[in-house]
């Protein structure tokens, strides 16, 4: 039996409370507040205490999907990425880079936001990058 308490940060609101994920035999068994964290000092709200639940949800996507005749088909990464790249390329070739927009996210990490904006600007060639945070 293995058990680990892995420090992380709550991904609900912008307060950014320190949590510990209780991992038992490679499964997320629970969430605890980090007692000595400068933001929350050992306390959490109802969302933070249940942070593991949405991660353990049976509704999680498990593999990429592509639409074919109105229905989603499960697919592998190579195909999904190839289709996405081909469609972006075709649209940019035909209508120019300004015909592409990217919505980044308040839910992904800084590193990922940085890469997404780099991809939009350096690779797709568009400055139409935004996020839905004001919504």
């Amino acid at each position, binding site marked *: *039996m*293995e*058990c*680990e*308490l892995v*420090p992380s940060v709550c991904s609900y609101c912008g307060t950014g409370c320190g949590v*510990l994920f*209780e991992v*038992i*035999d490679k499964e997320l*068994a*629970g969430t*605890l*507040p*980090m*007692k*000595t*964290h400068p933001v929350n*000092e*050992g*306390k*959490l*709200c*109802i969302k*933070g*205490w249940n942070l593991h639940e949405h991660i353990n949800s049976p509704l999680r996507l498990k593999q990429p999907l592509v639409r074919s005749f109105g229905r989603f088909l499960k697919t592998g990464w190579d195909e999904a990425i190839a289709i996405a790249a081909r469609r972006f390329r075709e649209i940019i070739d035909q209508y120019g880079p300004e015909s592409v927009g990217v919505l980044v996210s308040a839910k992904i990490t800084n590193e990922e936001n940085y890469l997404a904006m780099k991809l939009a600007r350096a690779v797709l060639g568009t400055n139409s990058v935004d996020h839905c945070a004001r919504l």
Partner: protein
Amino acid sequence: MKARVRRWLEEGTVDVFIGYRQVDGHPLPYCFTRENLDALDGLINSPARYALEKIATHLASRQPDLKIGILSLDTNRRALNVLGIWNQINPENITTVDADDAASGVATPDDMRTFEPVVPGPYKQQVGIDNAMSPADAEAFDQSERFSRWMYEFEKCIKCYGCRNICPVCFCRECSLEHRDLIGTGPLPPDVPIFHLVRAVHMAGRCIDCGLCEEACPADISLRLLYRKVNQILDNVFEYQTGSDPGQPPFSLLGNQVTLEPKPLDADK
């Protein structure tokens, strides 16, 4: 002491030892196992308390015969007594090491972040229930003042359920706090004072006065005092001191397991 834990792990006296280690200056709970014996060099005592015995119950529920060692304070041991009485763990599988024992050789590093309990401010002292108050002092207010002071505290509640979630002796599969007919859902604060009183009643014979609930309460509600009061009644009426003895029968105010005879009400007056 580290050598002793090491030997236990090597010999199979325990399969896992739950203590603390330091990560980036913070004390965090850690499970030491046979596979990572060298990690034991980092075993420390923590100035910030976690309910290590609750982690133990999570492990035991998955593997009932698991032998678990726990770095324990007095409160951890009382909680373990209650958990044993209620069949949440098998006491035979639990070995404790006294964290307070200076001879244990498990140190608290000085360069480590610690947990500061709340210092009740003057306004709270004026209108609420000071966390440091004794049950007798809280009792001394006249009835309407007592009521309004407690209501002030309860109205701060943000319904995080932290008091329940952190509690080492809260293990019910179905919690009355989530019973829709008992406590409404929707707005904040939750139904006052029912939410808090339901929990208080349920802590009778369970609460071992560790104070973790109060440390986890974002609203600094004087929860410990509330439950202490309930248990004081138990002590006065039934001479039942929760968690004091592993051989105690379980106490249930509402169920059918009350095996204790109440003593006469005027016994200690």
